[in-house]
């Protein structure tokens, strides 16, 4: 399957198969009017199968979101059709307004102006906890 190469934009590569859509949603790519391609289950020598996202526009990408959803993913910045920068994305220490705390007893459920902040508390098991109520959110 072929998708046209992009001129200026971002390619998020090596996304674990099945996580592409989640990344697409959390990055808010569904709200953009620029060309975005999500390619699922691409054959990969390293991973067996992988997902891939191409954004054909020079827009800021929240790397924390990528590190949270899939710390194994890589981000390739494309400028004038050439690879300008390739970087890996570590798991972020904190996530601000990426995920909402779902605990109905959390103060964020009633105080709308508060940022939803999660902190990485267990790197091994990918556990983030709400800084207010400490409800765990498992990285997926």
């Amino acid at each position, binding site marked *: 399957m072929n998708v046209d190469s992009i001129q200026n934009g971002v390619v998020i590569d090596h996304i674990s198969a099945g996580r592409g859509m989640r990344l697409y949603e959390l990055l808010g790519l569904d709200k953009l009017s620029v060309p975005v391609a999500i390619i699922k289950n691409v054959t990969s020598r390293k991973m067996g199968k992988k997902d891939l996202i191409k954004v054909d526009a020079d827009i800021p990408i929240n790397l924390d979101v990528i590190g949270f959803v899939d710390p194994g993913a890589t981000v390739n910045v494309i400028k004038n059709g050439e690879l300008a920068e390739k970087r890996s994305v570590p798991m972020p220490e904190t996530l601000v307004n990426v995920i909402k705390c779902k605990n109905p007893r959390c*103060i964020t459920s009633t105080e709308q102006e508060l940022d939803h902040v999660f902190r990485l508390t267990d790197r091994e098991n990918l556990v983030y906890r709400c800084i207010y109520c400490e409800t765990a959110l498992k990285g997926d």
Partner: protein
Amino acid sequence: MRSIIDILDFSVEELDELIACARDIIENPASYADSCRGKKLATLFFEPSTRTRMSFEAAMYELGGNVISMASASSSSAAKGESVADTVKTVSQYVDVIAMRHPKEGAALVASRTADVPVINAGDGGHCHPTQTLADLLTIQREKGRLENMTIGLCGDLKFGRTVHSLINAMSRYEGIKFVLISPEELKVPSYVKRDVLKNKGIPYVQTTDFDEVIPELDILYMTRVQRERFFNEEDYLRLKDSYILTPERLKNAKDDLSVMHPLPRVNEISVAVDNDPRACYFKQVKNGKYMRMALILKLLKEAGTI
């Protein structure tokens, strides 16, 4: 500006300091009677409380300070939709320290970020209640003369009980502690507490449903209330509740120097007949709570440069 949200906000050395201060207050109350003269504590209780609020108020009065408070959450600006942050920011213009209870988890953290004075978490929903744990620590220290090398039994609702999780967190920082976790299957200590605290730190623990089997080995027995609202059917609740009632009969098998504790209020999990047993410490625990709150208010006001 230092506020206290969680018992883990204190280092072990600071806890030792607070305990030493509380013990000195107990020995020499007169020398603290004017420590907070001219200073004010606000008790901001957004949900009903009897003992914690009165304990804070008594603590501030015994330090020579004054207390102001709102009549009730329903008649306060919170009822008009004011945010916790705004309420606390406003109140902090009037007073030197705030003790706050709020039904929402994390409310105390929000308050501490906007207040211009120290905030003490007096309970934020089911999340934290650090001054209860301070009371527990002083009680253990006074009863046992140490905080190390003992077997602590926790009995009842170990799943939802915030006091239990705080106590496990606090006591697991001392040497030679072993926990015996006594609860129905449905109310066992959550796995994240076991993993994050007990297993991570290599603290020995035993989980059991059999109260009578383990009672002889305990140095501390920390009872908690099994709450009706946690059960889907009444039958299960009644069956389980009745298996964890501490009676004089049961205590016969316990050590002579066992200390029986309870954060209170109790319903029926400790029979009233146990109150006369010298091993019952739960009313001493209440008094210890006041002394630790005094020590805490002093510490925070000193650190803030207020006194």
